[in-house]
């Protein structure tokens, strides 16, 4: 039993943290090897294990990084599953920006039944809440081909593709993607690959949320130490102290849930998904607690866009609206535990 990360992972985390503190762009992350860490050696990377994701995304969350690394891992992973090693190589090098478009309106968090349909190497349908589509060179899109879920690559600038883009609650952008006989290249792969990669992306999001919670907690503790009311630092008020103690406890529990998931991410699908749902449910509950307590203990200042907590709190809330929320995962956990 060993709860220490390997030397390599610790080094990556340290340099990633320093790089992010300086303010990193996409090229810097690629150069640092962050994108390579998302893929196994077989896939052309040098990581790809659950704990590689855990380490990388915890730092990205801690720094509040809004670059679409998770999307590179998700869509790039699907490309790898379909044997597109040339494309994966470009993703790792930071030369090809990719994202996955798999969610459809009206399905809530379910992956199906989808209605986007392939016909003569074109796709028609609507995909929703596609992160960072605007800045992507390639979309990995799920569609029905002869009634089976199949993956396609789509150029978002092609005719027949319309993006409706807005800011995302998590930071960055999100798009509705309308496909009207849009040209598409079949990649192969299908539902099983999608589910496995979504599980990995959920792990990434959970780890990201751990880092984000750490930052929210640290900011709140700083504020409690420095903000005075009635002549004393508000961190001396016992009611707040005890609530912060509970916040700290819950974050440690959530951290353990992510460790559990990272260790189980390559298990057979039922156990993988059960652990995924356990972690995502707990992360959902904990992130809500941390966001709401951080805001409440800060008071008015937390409500302003100018103060740095606002995007952090939104990121914590947004995490529950991706890959299934607290209740969606609770239901699945119950189903998979029966």
């Amino acid at each position, binding site marked *: 039993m060993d709860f220490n990360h390997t030397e390599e992972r610790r080094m990556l985390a340290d340099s990633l943290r320093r790089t992010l503190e300086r303010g990193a762009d996409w090229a810097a992350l690629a150069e640092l090897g962050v994108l390579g860490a998302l893929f196994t050696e077989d896939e052309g990377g040098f990581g790809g294990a659950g704990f590689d994701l855990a380490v990388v995304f915890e730092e990205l969350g801690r720094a509040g990084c809004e670059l679409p690394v998770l999307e590179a891992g998700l869509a790039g992973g699907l490309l790898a599953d379909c044997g597109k090693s040339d494309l994966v190589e470009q993703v790792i090098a930071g030369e090809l920006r990719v994202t996955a478009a798999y969610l459809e309106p009206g399905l809530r968090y379910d992956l199906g039944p989808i209605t986007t349909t392939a016909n003569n190497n074109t796709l028609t349908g609507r995909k929703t809440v596609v992160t960072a589509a605007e800045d992507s060179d390639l979309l990995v899109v799920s569609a029905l081909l002869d009634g089976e879920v199949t993956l396609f690559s789509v150029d978002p600038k092609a005719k027949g593709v319309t993006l409706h883009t807005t800011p995302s609650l998590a930071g960055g952008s999100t798009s509705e993607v309308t496909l009207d006989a849009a040209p598409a290249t079949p990649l192969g792969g299908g539902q099983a690959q999608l589910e496995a990669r979504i599980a990995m992306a959920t792990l990434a999001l959970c780890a990201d949320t751990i880092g984000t919670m750490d930052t929210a907690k640290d900011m709140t503790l700083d504020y409690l130490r420095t903000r005075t009311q009635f002549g004393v630092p508000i961190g001396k008020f016992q*009611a707040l102290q005890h609530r912060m103690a509970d916040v700290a406890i819950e974050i440690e529990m959530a951290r353990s849930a992510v460790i559990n998931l990272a260790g189980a991410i390559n298990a057979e699908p039922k156990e993988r998904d059960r652990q995924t749902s356990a972690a995502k449910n707990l992360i959902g509950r904990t992130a809500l607690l941390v966001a709401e307590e951080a805001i409440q203990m800060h008071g008015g200042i937390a409500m302003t866009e100018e103060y740095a907590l606002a995007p952090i709190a939104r990121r914590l809330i947004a995490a529950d609206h991706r890959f299934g929320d607290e209740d969606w995962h609770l239901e699945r956990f119950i189903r998979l535990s029966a």
Partner: protein
Amino acid sequence: MDLNYTAEERAFQQEVRAFMKANVAPEAAAKIAVGTHLDKADMDLWHSRLNAQGYLAGPWPKEFGGGAWSAVQKHIFEEETAYHNAPRIVPFGVGMLAPVLQAFGSKEQQDYYLPRILSGEDWWCQGYSEPGAGSDLASLKTRAVRDGDHYIVNGQKTWTTLGQYANKIFCLVRTDTSVKQQQGISFLLIDMDTPGIEVRPIILIDGVHEVNEVWFTDVRVPVENLVGEENKGWTYAKYLLTHERTGIAGVGFCNAGLDALKRVAKTEMHHGRPLIENPHFAARLARIEIDLMAMATTNLRVVAGADEGAAPGAESSMLKVKGSIIRQQINDLARRAVGPWAVPFVSEDLDSNLYHPGPDYAAKASNTYMNNRKISIYGGSNEVQRGIITKAILGL
């Protein structure tokens, strides 16, 4: 024990209801229904219609041309306002300054300002909070130093709601620094056009410009703008805080919010069935509804007590705490209800050229959730309210 309104109260309710039906602008109601902020024109229109009906001064005493509404009447009016998605009355002039002037202002001040409040000629904003003060309101630092017929005001106010529309501000200022905090505070009326006043917007967590900072640099205020006695301002400010807070629980908002939420949950699909049929969602909804049923009656108990002469002091604190929690839970569940649609995050102020891609009811779910985290912070945070309950009700 009788849980029903009296015949007179029911008649009043019918009258208000008819007024609402005839007068609430559909555009404003539509905005309110989905959580879009109103613009100044919406608010001005509502102000004038209420004034024409005499409702604006409904709670005012008869000697000031008011309707001397009972607490129950005020409650009915708030209930109907929320039920019909009518705009809230902008409270700073009508509901906050006016009672202070009526109780402590000079005859001249009353004669001059009260009609202008009703007509809408003056738009008042509130200058209480300061950046360093927070819940410790009495630690305010804005100075007013007497200089002949004027006070010279220097300092900074914050959280000034809708200050961007105001031509007047009522302020708590420190006029004596040699005494204990709560003493040495005065209540000043200031023209926003006076040189030395600068209003800076504060953008909130949902991207909306709703509050402001107001900076005072050598602002000259005539001494006749002092309300009551110098150094007694804290008393006047407290008068409002311990008085007339029967609407504090926000029961009307909660009822309207819960109704809207149920409609959403009947429309949104979960695993192919309406979300409202999902037991986990239904359980969350039912607990909130049960809590709200109990809070509504608690609110009525306090309202009825107020009409019997009981000053709803610390009971208001209970309503504030529970009311904010329930309202925030409704906002939380409304956000959950729209699922992935909560992710596109369009602020009407910052992203005014964008529209939200989801259904109308989803457009503001995240925004409203984020924005309403303020409810448990402003007007005395829930922590401050628990402190009041500790002392006044529990005797600890």
